C-alpha cells in the first residue's frame, strides 16, 4: 500500500466480493437443487433456499443412482474416481522420479535420446490420438479395467522435467560425499534424493490428484461397464434428455459429491497446490 485512497479500497473489495459471489453462484444453486424435490426444481423460478430433501437425495444417489439415466450407485463411482486419482499421481511420480534420477545422475549412451523421447510426449495429448490409443487399449484387453484407466495417463513429461529441474539444484557435494563413503547409486537415491524431494512430491500430488479425479475423455472412451464409471462420467450418463426430462435433484447431488474431494484438496492443501501449479509450468 503506497497511499491511502479509501474509495479505491472500497472499490477493490466490491470487485472482489462481486467476483467471489459470481464464481460461487453456480455452486450455490447446485447445492440448493440437490436439496429439493424434482417438482420444486421444475417450478420456475426455482427457490433459492435449501429444501429438506438433502438426506433423501444423497442417499438415493449413493445407493441407487438415478432412475431415468444411469442406475449405477454413485458410491461405487466415487471409489473408482478415488482409485484413479490416487494411482495416477503415485504412478506418475514413481516412474518419473526414477527416470529423472537416471538422466541427471548417470552418463550413458542414448541418454539425450531418451530425454527427448520423454520430452516429445508433451506434444501428444490424449485428445489428438483418441482412436489409435483406444485401439491399443482394446488390443491389450484393458477396456473397463483400472489399468486401462490409469496406465496410459501416468507417463508424463512434466513430472520428469520437474524432478530433473529439482535434482539439478541438489548440491554436487552430496553426491560426492555419498560416493566417497561408498554408497551405491540406489542408496544415495533412497537416503538423500527422495527425502529432499518430499516438498516437490506433495505439490505434484495435489495437481495430479485433481488431474486424475477430473479425467473425462479417457474414461468416457474406455468404460462401457457401469461398474467402472467414474463420478464425472456418471453425471454425464444421468443426463438423458432435454432439460425438463432429467432428475436434476439427483444429478446435482452427484455433482456436489464429484466436486467435493478435489475442492477440499485444493483448499486444504492450498500452499502445495499453488506451488505445484507454478512449478509445473516453469
Amino acid at each position, binding site marked *: 500500500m503506497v497511499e491511502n485512497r479509501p474509495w479505491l*479500497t472500497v472499490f477493490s*473489495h466490491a*470487485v*472482489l466480493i462481486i*467476483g*467471489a459471489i459470481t*464464481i*460461487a453462484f*453456480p455452486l450455490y*444453486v*447446485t447445492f440448493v*437443487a440437490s436439496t429439493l424435490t424434482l417438482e420444486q426444481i421444475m417450478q*420456475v423460478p*426455482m427457490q433459492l433456499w435449501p429444501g429438506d430433501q438433502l438426506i433423501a437425495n444423497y442417499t438415493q444417489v449413493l445407493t441407487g443412482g438415478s432412475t431415468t439415466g444411469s442406475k449405477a450407485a454413485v458410491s461405487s463411482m466415487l471409489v473408482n474416481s478415488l482409485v484413479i486419482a490416487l494411482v495416477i499421481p503415485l504412478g506418475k511420480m514413481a*516412474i518419473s522420479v*526414477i527416470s529423472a534420477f*537416471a*538422466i541427471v545422475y*548417470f*552418463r*550413458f549412451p542414448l541418454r539425450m535420446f*531418451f530425454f527427448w523421447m520423454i520430452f516429445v*510426449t*508433451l*506434444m*501428444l*495429448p490424449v*485428445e*489428438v*490420438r*483418441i*482412436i*489409435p*490409443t483406444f485401439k*491399443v487399449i482394446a488390443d491389450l484387453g484393458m477396456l473397463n479395467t483400472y489399468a486401462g484407466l490409469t*496406465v496410459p495417463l501416468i*507417463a508424463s513429461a512434466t513430472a520428469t522435467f520437474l524432478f530433473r529441474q529439482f535434482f*539439478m539444484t541438489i548440491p*554436487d557435494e552430496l553426491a560426492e560425499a555419498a*560416493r566417497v563413503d561408498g554408497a551405491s547409486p540406489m542408496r*544415495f537415491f533412497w537416503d538423500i534424493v527422495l527425502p529432499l524431494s518430499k516438498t516437490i512430491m506433495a505439490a505434484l500430488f495435489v495437481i495430479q490428484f*485433481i488431474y486424475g479425479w477430473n479425467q*473425462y*475423455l479417457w474414461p468416457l472412451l474406455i468404460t462401457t461397464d457401469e461398474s467402472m464409471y467414474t463420478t*464425472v462420467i456418471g*453425471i*454425464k450418463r444421468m*443426463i438423458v434428455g*432435454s*432439460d*425438463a426430462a432429467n432428475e*436434476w435433484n439427483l*444429478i446435482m447431488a452427484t*455433482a456436489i459429491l464429484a*466436486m467435493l474431494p*478435489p*475442492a477440499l484438496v485444493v483448499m486444504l492443501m492450498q500452499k502445495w497446490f*499453488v506451488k505445484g501449479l*507454478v512449478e509445473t*509450468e516453469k
Partner: protein
Amino acid sequence: MEKRVVFRSAWLPYLLVAPQLAITVVFFFWPAAQAVWYSFQLQDAFGLKTQFVGLQNFAHLFRDHNYLESFKVTAMFSALVAFFGIAISLLLATMADRVLRGAMAYKTLLIWPYAVAPAIAGVLWAFLFAPSIGIVTYVLKGWGVDWNWIINGDQAMLLVVIASVWKEISYNFLFFLAGLQSIPKSLIEAAAIDGAGPARRFWTIAFPLLSPTTFFLLVVNIVYAFFDTFGVIDATTQGGPGQATNILVYKVYHDGVKAADLGGSSAQSVILMFIVIALTVVQFRFIERKVQY
C-alpha cells in the same frame, strides 16, 4: 546444465528409465504413428477393407465445409475464452493485490473452481441456463431476452465460453497475483511520489512488467480452449446446434467414435498434432527468451 558428479553403472540407468519409456512407446508413439498411418487410408463402410489413398483424406478435409467451419468456431471460441479468462482474472488479481484485509479469504474463494472437472462446469452452467427451468433463463426472460441455447448457435457458444472461462479464472488469477506480488514495491512507490495515480501506475508499470505472465497465460489458455474444454462441450451442447460449438477436438471425437470415419478422424488428429507442436514450440521459445518488454 550438467552434473559434475555422476554415478557409473552399465545397466542401472536403463532399468530406471525403462518403465517410463515403455509406457511412452506403447501409449504415445505407437498410437501417434497409427494415427499418421490411418490418415493415409480409406476404410469402407463395414471396416472390412482399407485402401491406401495418400493425402486424399487431407484434401477432402480442406474442401469440407464443416471442417473449415470447425476451424473458425475453434478460433472464435479460444479467442473468447483466452480474452475473457485473462481480462477478468487480471482485474481480480489487481484488486486482490491492493487489499490488505481478507486477501487470503478472497484467494481461497477465487481458486476453488480449478478443482471442478470441465464436464461438471458445463453441467452447472447448462442447468443455470436451461431453456425451460434455468434460473438465469428466468431472469433473462424478465429482461425480454429470448434465451434458448439448444436452438440458438450464438447463445450455445456463449454458454460454453462462460463455463470454460469460469473454470479457468482461478488458474490465471494465481499466476497474475504471483506476478503482481513480485513487482518491486520501490517502483510503485517511486511512481506514486512522482504523482502517478493508480490507473496510470497499472498501465505503465504493472501491466508491462506482467507481459511475460500474460503471454504465457495466453498460450496456456489457448491450449486449454483447444483441448481441455472437450468435457464442457460434451456435457452441454455436443457441438450443436448445427456446427455452432463443434470445436476441432470434439469433431475428431465425433467423426472417429460416433461416425466411425477412421481415415477422416485420423487426418484431423494429425492436423491437431501439428497445432499442438506449434503451440509447444511457441511456449518453449518464450521460456528460453523470457520475453521482457
